């Protein structure tokens, strides 16, 4: 069964990789926006949003991504909503990403010394003004490295969506492996594809971390 040539395999895998990249970007951008909402709920002074956000985070961090995807994909058809695999995948990964990013960012906000809150409060700034002008600009700086670092987890997380039938890099790979009987070659290439997507991100994250530790502030 070797009438599928290597160039065909690579071309198909590149197509799958494009879907992986697209799903990763979607999940990262939408998850980032939702993560901001989670962050603000998590650090609100009112206990109700704080508890809700905490429960949200614990559900998504405390269960496997695969189960979250199953529940969204199969659960939606149970209630009569037929949603396509790509939508279930995007939705699942977005929720997953928002929970993690919200929690990472909360850590960054809480890493800002209490004195910054007290000094800005003493200047008669409101909570929102303190966040906007004093706390978030500093938290953002320390958040960049772990956020980029987490994006690697999002890229790898997209592999799980192959199980609900979303044809990204892993799913493309398993279809090709079945057709060519060359799983080692195909999955080797798949792994290489993930590495090519993730390595620049983790290298960038490390570089940012060094840069921030090297020079304080501004």
């Amino acid at each position, binding site marked *: 069964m070797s009438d599928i040539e290597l160039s065909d395999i690579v071309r198909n895998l590149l197509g799958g990789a494009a879907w992986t990249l697209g799903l990763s970007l979607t999940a990262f951008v939408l998850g980032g926006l939702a993560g901001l909402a989670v962050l603000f709920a998590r650090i609100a002074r009112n206990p109700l949003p704080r508890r809700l956000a905490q429960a949200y985070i614990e559900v998504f961090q405390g269960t496997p991504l695969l189960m979250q995807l199953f529940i969204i994909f199969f659960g939606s058809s149970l209630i009569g909503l037929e949603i396509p695999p790509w939508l279930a995948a995007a939705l699942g990964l977005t929720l997953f990403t928002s929970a993690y990013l919200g929690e990472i960012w909360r850590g960054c906000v809480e890493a800002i*010394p209490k*004195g*910054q809150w*007290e*000094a*800005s*409060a*003493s*200047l*008669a*700034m*409101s909570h929102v*003004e303190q966040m906007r*002008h*004093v706390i978030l*600009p*500093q938290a953002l*700086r320390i958040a960049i490295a772990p956020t980029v670092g987490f994006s690697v987890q999002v890229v790898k997380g997209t592999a799980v969506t192959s199980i609900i039938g979303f044809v990204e890099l892993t799913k493309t790979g398993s279809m090709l492996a079945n057709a060519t009987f060359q799983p080692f070659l195909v999955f080797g290439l798949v792994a290489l594809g993930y590495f090519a997507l993730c390595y620049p991100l983790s290298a960038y994250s490390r570089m940012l971390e060094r840069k921030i530790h090297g020079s*304080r*502030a*501004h």
Partner: protein
Amino acid sequence: MALVRIEALHKHFGSNHVLRGIDLDIEEGQVIALIGRSGSGKSTLLRTINGLESFDDGSIEVDGEHIRPQGTDLRALRMKVGMIFQQFNLFPHLTAGQNVMLATRIVRKMGDDAARDLAKSMLLKVGLQEKFDAYPDQLSGGQQQRVAIARALAMQPRVLLCDEITSALDPELVNEVLAVVKNLAAEGMTLIMVTHEMRFAREVGDKLVFMYQGRIHESGDPQTLFANPQTPELAGFIGSIN
């Protein structure tokens, strides 16, 4: 009528009764030195005056703004009460000038040019006009603390609270900060200072307040009290400092 009037103030931290009925009147232009051992409640008392610390019972009034155990208009209060901290607490992502301008722009709603002019004159007042564009980590501790003073002054407070503002400084930097405070006192600024600088308290203070176990144990003219403490606790405290 007193600018700051504190009456029957009580506060607990859990089961620890840290303020046990404080009564204190502060007149406009007075310099109050709050002294006492750590844990005597002096910093806590200071921090109740701008609402950084809540209290359980009693009342505080600053220039017509009432602070109550519940429901205080903190914004109106804090426009009138500035504070300077032991650790300076400058905003590290902003330059000295931006530190001074920030609250005047967003709280006092000053225009950019007016805020900049005011910040320049405040930095001039603390002798740091040439550091407008320097970031806090490019400044010495003494310079940072002077920027913090300029930042508080730019809000044109009626009262300035100073919480051990020279305690984190290297000894050779203490005097440049105290000199600025001394000038403020001479200009008639009302100052409430928690301090360990006894010589400064004696020279500049109008009133010495010695706190002991959550109460004002002794208070009065600094010269007199230092020379002639009425209680063994104050005598012991003065002895342990010198």
